[in-house]
């Protein structure tokens, strides 16, 4: 959009506000990142007392008490499972919405409800449910169910948006040429919606990996990474926490970067193909 405006002043004021906010938004993360490289005698704030990888080494060689590796592995596996489940359920649900079954309006709101309901209520309610049923909470059972319910609305909306922009003529062509519905879906629909599916998988992974409130109530005794981080924060704030924070943040950024590059390469390849 190009709007020619007479007022340069508004531009400057709004620009200053925007840049100021962006700096404010990034500064804490930058502080944490810098302090994670503090020297051995460095504390949780400035001065850093030298530059070292001491806290990262601590993280790696941690003892039983503050070992972040098992929770990290649990978080990773849980996020993978959540991501896979979210993809399957959201593609099915969005495809079903195209079939305009009875009650699809209500169904839409049912899935949207998961987006609106705060984690603290969902987690607490699910904890009551499992307690009444006599089920022991665990990161790979109860927490998994709740995590999927959190990622599912995001995946569902993503897939709905993808199917909205989808040209049904392509499927029609395949069906007219004698393909069955299943084959048409696999050979025509699936490759076209694939970028959306990858986006959904990303949502499923990162929403589960970072989730705290829902896990807190449902994970039982073996916690995930956010729970371990919060427990350590309760005991003592150490630069180790900055190190783990920097590691997970860097991981998120790398995944986003890889996916963006993937999308970009794909878009370029599709453009380059002769019509």
């Amino acid at each position: 959009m190009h709007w020619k405006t007479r007022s340069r002043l508004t531009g400057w004021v709004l620009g200053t506000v925007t840049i100021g906010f962006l700096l404010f938004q990034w500064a804490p993360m930058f502080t944490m990142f810098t302090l994670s490289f503090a020297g051995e005698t460095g504390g949780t704030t400035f001065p850093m007392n030298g530059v070292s990888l001491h806290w990262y080494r601590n993280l790696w060689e941690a003892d039983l008490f503050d070992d972040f590796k098992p929770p990290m592995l649990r978080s990773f596996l849980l996020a993978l499972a959540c991501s896979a489940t979210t993809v399957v359920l959201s593609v099915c649900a969005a495809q079903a919405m195209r079939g305009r079954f009875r009650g699809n309006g209500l169904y839409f709101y049912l899935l949207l409800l998961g987006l609106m309901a705060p984690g603290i209520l969902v987690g607490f309610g699910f904890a009551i449910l499992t307690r009444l049923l006599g089920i022991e909470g665990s990161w790979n059972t109860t927490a998994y169910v709740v995590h999927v319910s959190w990622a599912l609305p995001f995946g569902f909306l993503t897939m709905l948006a993808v199917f909205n922009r989808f040209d049904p003529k392509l499927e029609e062509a395949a069906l007219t040429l004698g393909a069955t519905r299943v084959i048409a879906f696999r050979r025509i629909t699936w490759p076209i919606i694939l970028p959306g599916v990858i986006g959904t998988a990303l949502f499923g992974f990162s929403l589960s990996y970072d989730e705290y409130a829902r896990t807190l109530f449902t994970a039982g005794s073996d916690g995930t990474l956010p729970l371990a981080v919060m427990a350590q924060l309760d005991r003592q704030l150490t630069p180790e926490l900055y190190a783990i924070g920097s590691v997970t943040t860097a991981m998120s950024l790398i995944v986003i970067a890889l996916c963006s590059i993937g999308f970009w390469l794909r878009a370029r390849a599709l453009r380059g193909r002769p019509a």
Partner: protein
Amino acid sequence: MSTIRAGSPAAFWLALPAGLWMVLAVVLPVLLIVWVSLWGGQGVSPNNPITFDNYARFLANESYRWLILDTIGQAAMIMAITGVLGYCIAYFLTVKVTSPGWRIALFLAFVIPFWTSTLIRAIAFVPFLGVNGLLNQLLISLGLIERPIQAFLYSRLGISMAQVSLYTLLASGPVVYMLSSIPLALREAAMTLKAPPIIVFWRIILPLTLPGIVIGQVLVFLNVLADFITVTTVGGNKLAFLGNLILLFYEGSQIRSTAVVSVLLMILMLVGVTVALRVVDIRKLGS
């Protein structure tokens, strides 16, 4: 014709798993909370008598009543700040930035932190706001203050700064969406008819972006009400809002009180969303 027939049984069966999942993991738990909040008796069992005593007892406590108001006040304040800030940023990014490269770069700088952990972002505010923190160092080196300000961390000011940083994107995103769907011709028509910029904004741009503003405000409202992570990490257990009270009661195994606070929180949220829906029709947004 598409890969799925309208009204076919296949559509129903495809929709069923996700629907059942949401009923089991969201609807049923929320209904259970309401039920448990009405339990009399002592134990955790479905045979408890139904009573409103839990609510009466909770609301009879003046400090709890004050806490409810305080939570609403905090939400209102964060909504106001993020609303103005978010609109300014959305307007700048979509309207004022003309170079596509710059727009993408600024937009990414705005959105990327949202994809990282909220908990980690909240913790990062501790070394940023602390006595020797980056913010104090910066203010001192600029000569604006002489001594570090202690009140940044473990205070309402600190919590609010963190919440503004975390939630401005929620207020801004829907506005960006609405702004970028305004046809250029509308504005040009107004300009041709010699409307001054402020009138163009007030009579055309603002009403057209109103649904975006309202949705952003709802998102911020819901998030601030339920936020307990920022309050514990940046507030250092010195302050509590309704979300923290839920956690506190739960850790003390007071399941009825937890449920009561949860239901009150739910009511606040439902009222907020209902008010918002009266202002704009969300279903019209898709078209």
